[in-house]
Structure formats: C-alpha cells, structure tokens
C-alpha cells in the first residue's frame, strides 16, 4: 500500500528531519527537564546529594540540548510555514505558557548556580527551577497531543466558534492531557536512568535505580492509557497505530524495549538500561510521528500541501545535512568531555 517512494519526497525528508530533531530533543533536552522533576521529588537522607547530582549532570549540556527545540521550530516555519502559522495561532495560550516555563527553568537554574550558596537563596531558585521543569514538559506534551487530536480550528482569519472552543478546549481535553502526563513521565524516566549511570556513589545509584523503575512503570501505564484515549480523542492516530504491520512493529518495539529496560534496571545493568530506555522513548516518538503521517496538522494540512516551494526545501535539506555533519563531532566532543565512559 505504501511504497518507499512516498517517504522519499522532499517534504517528507524535511518532515523526517524535524521528527529526528524532536526525537533527539526528547531524549536530551527532555531528560534535562526530567532532572528538574527529581530535584522537586528529592527525598531521603541523600536529598541534597541527589539535587547536586542533577545539577552537575545538566549544567554543561542543557543549553546545547535546548537548541534541538529551536531547530524544530525554525525547520518547521521554513519548510511548512502554513502549518507553523496554524499551530502558533490555535495553540497560542499553551505555547505562551510553555515559553514561560522554558524561561523560568533556564534562568532559575543558572541563577542558582551563580547566586549565594546560602540555603534560603538556593532553595528559592531551586523551587522555581523544579516547578518549571515539571510544568514545561506537561504543556509540551499537551501541545503535541492537541495537534494529534485533529481538532485544532483553522483561525487564519478570525475566531469562529467562540473563545473557549477555539483557544482552550483543543488542548485542555483528556487526550492532550494524557500526552502531557506521558511526556512528563518519559522525561523523568530518562533522567533517572541516565543518573544511575552518572551517580558517583552506590547509594545515589540505588536512589535513582528505584526512581527509574518506578517511572518506567508509570510510563508503560500512561502510554497504554493514552493509546486507549486516542480511540475517541485522536482517531487518526488510533487507526494508524492499530492497523498495518509497521504500526504493530512500533507498538511491540516500544513494549519490548520498555520491558527490557525494566529488566536491565532490575539486574543493575545500567548502561544497557540507558540504551534500552533511549530506544523505548524513540519508539514512542516515532509512533506518534507515524500516527500523524502524512499530516502535519490534521485533519487537513499534510506535509505535501503545507510545504514550502521545492527550492526552499532543497536548500534547507542541504543546510541540515551540512549542519549535522559539522555538529555531530562537536556534540560527540561535548558529551565525551562531560559524560566520560568510565
């Protein structure tokens, strides 16, 4: 039914690059937000050490990881300007809230690093950092979920159905909220798994192992609940994910890697768990991408009819290829310096 040719069109390739960027953002920048979740939930006798580990783990890399999101945005508005305009209008409110979270998370984290080391000062910035780290992924997930519902209004001209039905309910309904919770739990899960590898002591490692195991269960439960919610909340995604052999591959792939990651955590195979968690989350991201394909903003904007002219797409694809070739060694260097294999 679907030949390979369908995936090798110019718009599909650029859309693929956007999905890859989003995937990498989820497992890098997303995990930095997840770190903030564990800052908020720090507990036990190693509470302060847990917080210090989170801070140390994300300090050198969060700004670079954050750029994947900027890349998603600039690729989207260059290659699919009509979709970008539609999304930025219909999702104005949650996007503004997400930006608020992004600004507060980044600023508060930096302020905490450079402000006085007095406890009260550290706690104040720490609290803002942690709360923003929880709120932002939640809203990001709701935005993605709202797109997937296919219920975003076309507001190119003016408000049509009344304020609440145009600007509030499309993202404040069960399925988008479910996706928000999924994003939050996925990011927290990834962060906990990464921290088991990076923990400097056995005690801290056990702390984050317990957290990773708990979060992995939450991810599985929420992902399953979201799939059920999709049946009525996002019918397009539901039908794409429940029919065809490729959908089955994604579904079973995600389930397999989820179980394998749990098993690895259980057996304290942290490096293996990290790889498996990465694969599990990537499967979820691609499940969503597949569920929407070929729509960018269902039910009417596809990657073909919302695409910029071919000349723009060709140049952009060239820039992406050259850019990634230049970036890859730089990123590898960054992670080799700060996340040494020991």
């Amino acid at each position, binding site marked *: 039914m679907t030949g390979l040719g369908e995936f090798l069109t110019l718009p599909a390739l650029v859309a693929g690059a956007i999905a890859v960027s989003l995937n990498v953002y989820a497992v890098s920048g997303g995990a930095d937000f997840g770190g903030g979740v564990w800052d908020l939930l720090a507990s036990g006798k190693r509470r302060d050490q847990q917080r210090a580990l989170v801070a140390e783990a994300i300090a*050198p890399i969060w700004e670079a990881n954050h750029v994947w999101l900027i890349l998603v945005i600039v690729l989207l508005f*260059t290659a699919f300007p009509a979709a970008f*305009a539609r999304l930025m*209008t219909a999702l104005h409110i949650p996007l503004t809230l997400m930006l608020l979270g992004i600004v507060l998370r980044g600023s508060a984290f930096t302020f905490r690093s*450079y402000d006085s080391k007095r406890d009260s000062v550290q706690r104040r910035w720490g609290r803002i950092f942690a709360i923003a780290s929880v709120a932002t992924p939640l809203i990001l997930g709701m935005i993605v979920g709202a797109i997937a519902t296919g219920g975003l209004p076309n507001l190119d001209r003016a*408000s049509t159905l009344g304020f609440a039905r145009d600007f509030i309910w499309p993202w404040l309904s069960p399925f988008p909220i479910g996706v928000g919770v999924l994003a939050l739990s996925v990011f927290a899960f990834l962060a906990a798994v990464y921290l088991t590898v990076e923990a400097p002591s056995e005690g801290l490692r056990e702390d984050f192992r317990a957290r990773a195991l708990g979060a992995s269960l939450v991810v599985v439960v929420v992902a399953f609940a979201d799939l059920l919610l999709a049946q009525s909340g996002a019918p397009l995604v539901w039908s794409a994910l429940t029919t065809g052999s490729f959908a089955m591959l994604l579904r079973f792939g995600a389930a397999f890697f989820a179980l394998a990651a749990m098993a690895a955590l259980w057996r304290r195979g942290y490096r293996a768990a990290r790889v498996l968690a990465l694969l599990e989350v990537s499967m979820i991201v691609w499940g969503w991408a597949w569920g929407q394909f070929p729509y960018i903003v269902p039910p009417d904007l596809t990657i073909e009819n919302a695409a910029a*002219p071919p000349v*723009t797409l060709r140049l952009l694809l060239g820039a992406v290829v050259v850019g990634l070739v230049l*970036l890859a060694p730089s990123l590898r260097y960054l992670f080799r310096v*700060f996340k040494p294999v020991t």
Partner: protein
Amino acid sequence: MSNLFAARSQMAVSLAFHIIFAEVGIAMPLLMTIAEWRWQRTGDAVYLDLAKRWAKGTAILFAVGAVSGTVLSFELGLLWPTFMRHAGAVIGMPFSLEGFAFFTEAIFLGVYLYGWDRISPRAHLTAGALVAISGAASGIFVVIANAWMNAPRGFRLVNGQALDVDPVAAMLNPAALSQTIHMTIAAYAATALAVAGIHALMLRRAPLTGLAEQLQRFHRAALGVTLAVGIPAAILQPISGDLSARFVALWQPVKLAAMEGQFETERGAPLRLGGWPNESRRQTRFALEIPRALSLLAYHDPEATVQGLEAFPRDEWPPVPIVHAAFQLMVGLGTAMALVAAWAAMVAVRRRSLLFGPGDRWLLLAIATVAPFGFLATEAGWFVTEVGRQPWIVFGLLRTSEAVTPMPGLILSFLLVTLLYCALGVVVVWLLWRQIIRTSGETLHESRERALSKRAP
C-alpha cells in the same frame, strides 16, 4: 490598548530585552578568549583570573539570552502568523542557519565554562574561539532576516501568494551588508566599552578604597583587553552608520525622512540636530540646522534632493517623532563613544601601551561615563529600524496590521512578558553586581592559588 498595539509592544519588549544579551553573547566570548590567550602567551595569571571572572558573568547572561531568544523564535508565529505564513519559505533559511550557528555556540560555551580542568589549555582556548566565531555568525544570520524585512527580495507576490521563491536572493538582499556590519560592530563596541567602564570605575576608585596592587593590575589588564576591542569598534561604528544611512536614503527614503524630520522634498537639505517633528503641522521645530549637510551625508552631494515625508501617502508614514528622537539619540551616544575611544587611543599611542592607571583620572571617568551608552544606542537603533519600517512588517508589501494574530486579549501576554523580563533584568543586574563585580577581590586570591599550582603552559 488595541490587539495590534499590544502585539507590537510585546515584540518590542522581547527584542529590546534580548538584544542586550545577544550583544553580550557575541562580544564577551571574544574578550574571554583574548584574556585567556594572553595568559597562555605571557603566563601572567592576572589574565587567567580575568578570563574566569568574565566567563562567570557570561554564563549568566548567555543563559538568559538563550531562553529569551527562544521566546522570540516562537513569537514570530505567536504574534505574526500571517507574516510567517508568507515569509517562512522565503526567509526561513537564515533562521535555520542561525539555528546551527547557535548550536555550535551553545556546545562550545558548555565546554568552555565547565571544561577548565577537563581539557588541554589549547583545546580550551579553541573552544573559546569557536564560541566567539559562532556567536558572531548567529547574530549575522538573524540580522540578515531582519534586513529582508526592510528590503524584501527573492520572491514575487501574486494575489497574496509568494511565487518564484529564491531564498538565496532573499538572503543577499541589499540591506543585509550594511545592517549586519552595523549590528556586529555595535555588539563589540557596546559590550567592550560597558565592561571597560566597570573596570575603569574600579580602577579610578582604587586610591580611595585602598585597592591592593594585585587587584589594580587585574583591572588594568581588563581595561587593556576591553579597550583593544572597544576602541576600534567605537571608532569604526560611525563609518558603518554612514553606510547604513546611505542604504536607507536609497531604498527606504520615507524612513530617512522620518529619521531626519524632513517633511518637504528639498534640494540641499539641512541636517537637523535635535528638534521635535510635528506631524500635523508638517514641520520640525526647535532644531539646530546645518545647511546642506543632510544632502551631503545621505548622497555625498551638497545639492542632492532629499525626498520629504510629503512625497509619500500619509498612511505610509512611520511615527515620525519617535523615529527622529531615537535616531538623534543613537547618533549622539555613538558619537560620544567614538570621541572617548579616540581620546583613549591617542593616550595609548603616545604611551605605546593600553595599560592605564588610577592616575588617568579624567580618561577613566570618561570611559565609565560612556559605559551604558552602547546598549542605549543599540536600543535606539532598533527603534529607528523597526519603528521606522512601520506601518509595514515587510516593507512596501505587507502591513503590520494585516500580519497580527487573531488571538484576542494580547494585552495579557504583553503584560506577562513585560513583568517577567523586568524581574529577570533586576535579578541579572543584581547577580552580576553581587556575585561577579563586587567580589572580584575576594576570589582573586583563591583562583591565583589554583593557577600557580597548575602553572602556565
């Protein structure tokens, strides 16, 4: 407040806030890298102290710059979706390139800030240089996109549809060269002289506060590095300003007329210093007029004809008083900076050294006085180019009022952004003062011990 005005105000606040951090993000890495390079060359630990202290301040400013820049990339669509729907395919390219340049900047800034003890001195210095280069590149790409809004190229507009799109031609628009040069030099002049001013003030007060000899050396070295960048930048900026103004005269004569408060079309037009343009009376009063100087400056011919605002339909005028006042302010501040820079250059040439001491009291006072001028001039300059382009968002083609989002109640997001940025601004200034500037004496000793135990290469 109308929705359109709220959107414009929110964009103005967001840009005005971000531009300061963007300038710092372009120029500070250069200053840090020069200081570190001096340390590696001379083994003088005072330069290592300097690089580390500046790096701390840069870390704070860069983080706020990164998140406020993210806000802007979303606001393009949140506030101006119709603009982005038309312009995205034409001018998205430089934004994408900026994405990659900024990526490089963020990666190597992480390496630079946290890698002091993890990588070799040479690798560390290289990381600093890469931050400086990619920071300048990302600034240039964004300004190219803004230049396109002043001189849109690379497409044909047919029935509201962009046809024959050519992103390369859009990037090579005629405003790109003068605008990128002007903004890049502005970043170096504003940042370097602002930092120079802080150190000049500390040095000048040294005899009063009994500053230790070691700390005096620190501030002298800082002044040397910042002036090495700030002096040429501040002196070159009026020349690049002339280039920019001549571009405006040629391509956006209505903006030039507003900048100069020129209502009538006139041969041998005078240059007006100060004055207040009255749009309804169509005259600029209380200005000091220098005969024929505007024609001379704008067209390099004292008898050239300058088109006045009257040559254009009334509904295509930008708000004249704002543009005129902002332009005067920018030129005045820039001139003051160039004069102080020239003075410092003369003293330095006579002495064959950029190391000033507390004895240069008047020069230090002058440098400290112009410290905020560069950032103020930058703000004024952005008012000239952005307000001067009104009522257009894409000059001559798409009106700002047609591009605004249908989302109602934008006053709320405008207030939210304004409050947030006011609070962030206060915290940043307070942190820089408390944790970076005021404590420079206390921590010097500690970092010196570390430096000595490591030995310079």
